[in-house]
């Protein structure tokens, strides 16, 4: 883990969702222009309790319960952002973002270019995403690729509590819209040391979680823990894997990816989104452009299937598993 905790810094053991709350609280304390908008984010504390306590601390003027209308939440946030606020819009699930997609696509992402930088949209859209928590199908969608295709909006996905707080603060500080995807399955899966004070994790920088020589394994969000298990097991078999947590899907950290591939010559990309049109394809294209002559084997992907996310009885079949990842790694190293 790159979770760098300096000894002097006071830290708390937090889950990922608690780190998200902590990130918002830290920033809201410092800046009055930060607002939170969403369904049940006030008294109820949000569907996953990510905004728990914020309404008591900052009042209903800054933590605003909205009607069930995602286009309205995002549209209002865009208006607020243009007028000097820094809104944080919560989608209950990323799969509920579709009504708001038009607002994001047509306005949030392009107001800066449309106004020749006279206006920007400094807002964050927070959205829990991904399968594995036995929620119905649309709740489990992992549609990051819809947003990485859209210039003007950054796409950030933390995989652990430290990165969650650091990246969220960086997203709030960013002058442009950021889609902040929160991996639901990792919300309460484990705790980690998170500094109490304000800090940032740079957007656009991948983390090298383990260093290795034989193959570069690339994952983000929920899939990082799946990859970690596979990588650990492979190291027992004598295969040295370099595990990259991308953390930002747009813009990609070209340098870290390319340097790692130049070192290992082999690539396995893991994402839980359907394979066709997935964000992994862009990683492949980048490697093809910048590290082609270093490849020792075809790049491989372990992904979800080209089907709607299944009901929970089948979700474990749908999601990539350490076994599938191991198989792909073996294929790559024995090609």
């Amino acid at each position, binding site marked *: 883990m790159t979770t760098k905790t300096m000894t002097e810094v006071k830290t708390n053991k937090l889950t990922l969702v608690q780190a998200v709350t902590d990130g918002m609280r830290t920033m809201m304390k410092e800046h009055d222009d930060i607002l939170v908008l969403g369904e049940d984010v006030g008294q109820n504390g949000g569907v996953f309790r990510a905004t728990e306590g914020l309404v008591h601390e900052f009042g209903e003027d800054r933590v605003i319960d909205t009607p069930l209308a995602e286009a309205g939440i995002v549209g209002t946030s865009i208006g607020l952002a243009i007028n000097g606020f820094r809104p944080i819009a919560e989608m209950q699930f990323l799969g509920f973002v579709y009504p708001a997609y038009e607002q994001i696509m047509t306005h949030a992402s392009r107001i800066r270019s449309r106004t020749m930088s006279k206006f920007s949209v400094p807002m964050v859209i927070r959205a829990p995403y991904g399968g594995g928590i036995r929620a119905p199908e649309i709740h489990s969608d992992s549609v990051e690729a819809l947003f990485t295709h859209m210039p003007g909006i950054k796409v950030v996905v933390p995989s652990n509590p430290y990165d969650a707080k650091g990246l969220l603060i960086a997203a709030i500080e960013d002058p442009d819209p950021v889609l902040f995807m929160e991996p639901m399955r990792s919300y309460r899966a484990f705790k980690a040391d998170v500094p109490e004070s304000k800090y940032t994790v740079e957007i656009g920088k991948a983390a090298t979680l383990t260093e290795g020589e034989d193959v570069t394994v690339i994952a983000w969000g929920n899939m990082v823990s799946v990859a970690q298990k596979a990588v650990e097991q492979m190291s027992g078999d004598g295969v040295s894997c370099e595990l990259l947590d991308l953390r930002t899907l747009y813009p990609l950290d070209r340098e870290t990816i390319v340097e790692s591939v130049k070192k290992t*010559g082999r690539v396995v990309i893991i994402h839980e989104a359907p394979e066709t049109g997935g964000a992994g394809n862009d990683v492949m294209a980048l490697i093809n452009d910048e590290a*082609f*002559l*270093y*490849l*020792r*084997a075809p790049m491989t992907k372990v992904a979800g299937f080209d089907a709607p996310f299944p009901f929970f009885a089948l979700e474990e079949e749908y999601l990539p598993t350490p076994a599938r990842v191991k198989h792909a790694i073996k294929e790559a190293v024995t*090609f």
Partner: protein
Amino acid sequence: MVEVKLHDVGEGMTEGEITQYLVNVGDHVKIDQPLVEVQTDKVSAELPSPVAGTVKEILAEVGEVVTVGTTVIVLEKEGAAVTPHESKASQEKEEPVSFTIKINKGRAERQSERVLATPYTRRIALENKVDIEQVSGTGPAGRVTDEDVFRFMKEGPSKTVEETSHEEAQQTTEPVSEKKEEAAPVRAGKTIPYRGRRKQIGKKMTHSLMTIPHVTHFDEVDVTNVMKLREELKAEGIKPVSVASFFIKALVFALKEYPVFNAVLDEEKEEIVLKEEYNIGLAADTDEGLIVPVVQGADRLSITGINDEMKRVMKLAKENKLSKKDLSGGTFTVSNVGPLGSTGATPIINHPEVALVAFHKTKKMPVVIDDEIVIRQMMNMSMSFDHRVADGATAVAFTSRFAEFIENPTKMMLEMM
């Protein structure tokens, strides 16, 4: 003028080697008179004259490999002075291929030898100025590995013995990422061109072995009774027949019982196609290399008929005069290496067939029959089969059935009824 071009004499050939001219410049030729002999991958063909006339020009040299469409000979048509217009028309009529560009040998060679290699290996070759197309691969599916490139840099081409790039490659600098080691110099002797029939055999064998999971099983057959029967027939003044003709007849009967070996696997359609014809290919050793003429419809021929047909195709094979028909339609192949002295082999299947048997040397051996040691004429046989299509048990049953016919030739008679 009429241009005689190399045309496709069958099976989509792309090039052929000029082996000899049957006419000289100035000769008068009749229509359909053979002008030139061309060796293709499989057969030697003669190009006949499309018109009666006089040989004006011979454009390709003996030994030259020319592509289909290349003009080889220019003829002046007999009779009244030919108008250019007429000439053009007749030209088009004779040969639809309109381009007459002479083959650029180096380029053709490169295209046909496109090698497999990962980008990483290609980078090593690139950085060391090695033409990767010249490196023979030892990796999976013949892929060129990093080691192959390093070896090439150290030793030069070992299998590709032709062309000038050879010397260039040997002059390259030392491997970028490998320590310098003094290699013992090996003097190169005569080079043998790897093309034509030899190259075709190489391609076919590689393809078969790479695509078919081969299993070979061995068996021994007591051929004493067949030998005896043959002698008896001879003593009665009947025209002698070879033992191999008995083998082929017995194989056909066994194939009828185990048709899965007289088949092809259609992977695309996911079907094993059982053939209704029994066309037995005979692996023949010729000066040019291995070629497989086919005894067509072996099931419809008597043993004497098989004998005659075998003799005919083998003779044509030796003379390099096999027709396309003699070489096509095989459903099962036999390699009779016994006369050459072999006692065992793991033969490569004649793709896309499913199996192949090799018959080995027959020799007198002490054998236990009814608790007594007797001297019998024993022969080893090897059978390679496609393990995707059949399993070992079926293959063993097949050869056992074959052995039964050979060991007791009268049983074959029952099958003939």
